């Protein structure tokens, strides 16, 4: 592999990390509250509101049912509004984050819903309000699941970011398509696959270690 190809590989890796990381953080910041809202407004939840719950559920399901490649194109006006351009790495972060947020919200919802109701009762019996329940019970108790779910989301984003090449976002997937596939450079293809495997394994390993440290069950 030539030094130029190597430089291209490093740059693509950085673009993938940037897209995955930025959209991952946005999905965490937006998805966790959304997941909390889904659990809290559900029947028997701490802020029961069936109407709001079905609206939120419908929005989440709506975004989750659209294939990412379509979302990528359909969101171009939104992206242009936010980033100023519909092309490039930063522009890809918008659809990636919008796709990952409902995905992560559902994963967080599952972890939060599994928190033992008895613990909520115990804190209510102490005189805690909803915020206390969220801060002291729901989030800390679900934390291992929240982190494990975030790991899954990041890995999914690594895969999804490959499609972002379609709007000129670059990244490892784009490199593999353009050089490895279209120019028959098998070495590039193999190098990209190896880098992706290492990247995904690294994310998973970090996530697993963090979960092990957080889990006191």
């Amino acid at each position, binding site marked *: 592999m030539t030094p130029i190809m190597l430089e291209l590989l490093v740059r693509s890796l950085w673009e993938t990390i940037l897209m995955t990381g930025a959209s991952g953080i946005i999905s965490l910041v937006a998805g966790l509250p959304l997941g909390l809202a889904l659990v809290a407004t559900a029947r028997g939840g701490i802020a029961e509101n069936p109407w709001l719950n079905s609206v939120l559920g419908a929005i989440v399901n709506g975004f989750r049912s659209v294939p990412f490649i379509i979302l990528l194109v359909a969101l171009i006006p939104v992206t242009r509004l936010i980033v100023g351009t519909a092309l490039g790495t930063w522009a890809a972060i918008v659809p990636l984050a919008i796709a990952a947020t409902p995905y992560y919200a559902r994963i967080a919802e599952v972890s939060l819903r599994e928190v033992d109701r008895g613990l909520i*009762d115990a*804190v209510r*019996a*102490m*005189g805690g309000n909803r915020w206390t329940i969220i801060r002291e019970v729901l989030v800390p108790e679900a*934390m291992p699941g929240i982190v494990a779910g975030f790991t899954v989301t990041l890995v999914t984003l690594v895969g999804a970011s490959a499609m972002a090449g379609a709007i000129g976002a670059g990244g490892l997937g784009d490199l593999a398509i353009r050089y490895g596939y279209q120019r028959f450079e098998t070495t590039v293809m193999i190098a990209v696959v190896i880098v992706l495997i290492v990247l995904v394994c690294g994310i998973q390993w970090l996530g697993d270690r963090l979960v092990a440290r*957080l889990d006191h069950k």
Partner: protein
Amino acid sequence: MNSVVSAPASVATPQAEEVVRLTDVKRRFGATPALDGVSLTVRKGEILGIIGRSGAGKSTLIRCLNGLEQADSGEIHIEGRNITGLTEKDLQPLRRRIGMIFQHFNLLSAKTVEENVALPLKIEGLGKAERLKRAAELLDLVGLSDKAKAYPSSLSGGQKQRVGIARALAARPALLLSDEATSALDPETTRSILALLKGINQKLGLTILLITHEMEVVRSVADRVAVIDAGRIVEEGQVWSVFADPQAPITQRLLSGIRPQLPEHISARLSPVSGDEQILSIDMAGPAAQGALFADLSQALPQSFRLVHGGIDHIQDQPVARFFIAVPARDASLPEKVQTFLKARGARVEVLGYDANHA
């Protein structure tokens, strides 16, 4: 109720301040009434045991007391304040006056033991240093000072419940609610937890209301007992007097495991009309049970009886005796005389039948 036995000086005086007063509290889930008109008072400093089978409504009852469950009708007064119809927000400061412990402990797994104990104080808004100081005091009280930095998952069931008790006491409550707190524990651990609760009741004068399905729990710690069945209080009184003379069939059934019963092989062959021996049950309690009953009986009426089964239990320092005797019945006047003698001594006597098989 329990008129046969005279009550000794009660542990909590009748005029003592009421911590809890329930008046005709009703609660239904769908078509089934969980509470069907419960009236009850808990006096300051006493331990009241509420016993019932599962589904009798006892969990609903205890959860109504701190508003975890809302009553449909009736009034609930806590320390003189009517809490029925209060909003969640208004209930919050009130709940800080009421500690609660649970069957499954409900400790937060993500927090250390001391953080768990300090949580009610954090909710109250106390500073961290103060919280941890108080948590240390409480862990000392329950004998778990060395576990302050441990996580609940590393503790045994009994230790978890001790942490639960320390946590429930953190905010210096006026009332402790115990929701089947020993039901998930083995008998030995149960005894140590009950001893801890009794000790706290005596040392701090804390009022405790506990619900359970085990008579043994009521027997060992409660001052008074209320029996709940199908959402109603069917019997209530001093523990020793209810144990001595249970009125309601459900109470008798709940007690059957821990009161002496006529052995099965004898009760199975009893004839209701005639036989060689008449089998009697004798129940005595309180001062009446303190005399040398059988010595006196054999002196007054020699050869008049044979002990079959029974014993004396001591509940709240009161003797509660239950014996089964066999009286020769060939001469019909002897059983009469024995019964008259026993009744004169304050015993409750019941003829269970006649035993023909005994030589």
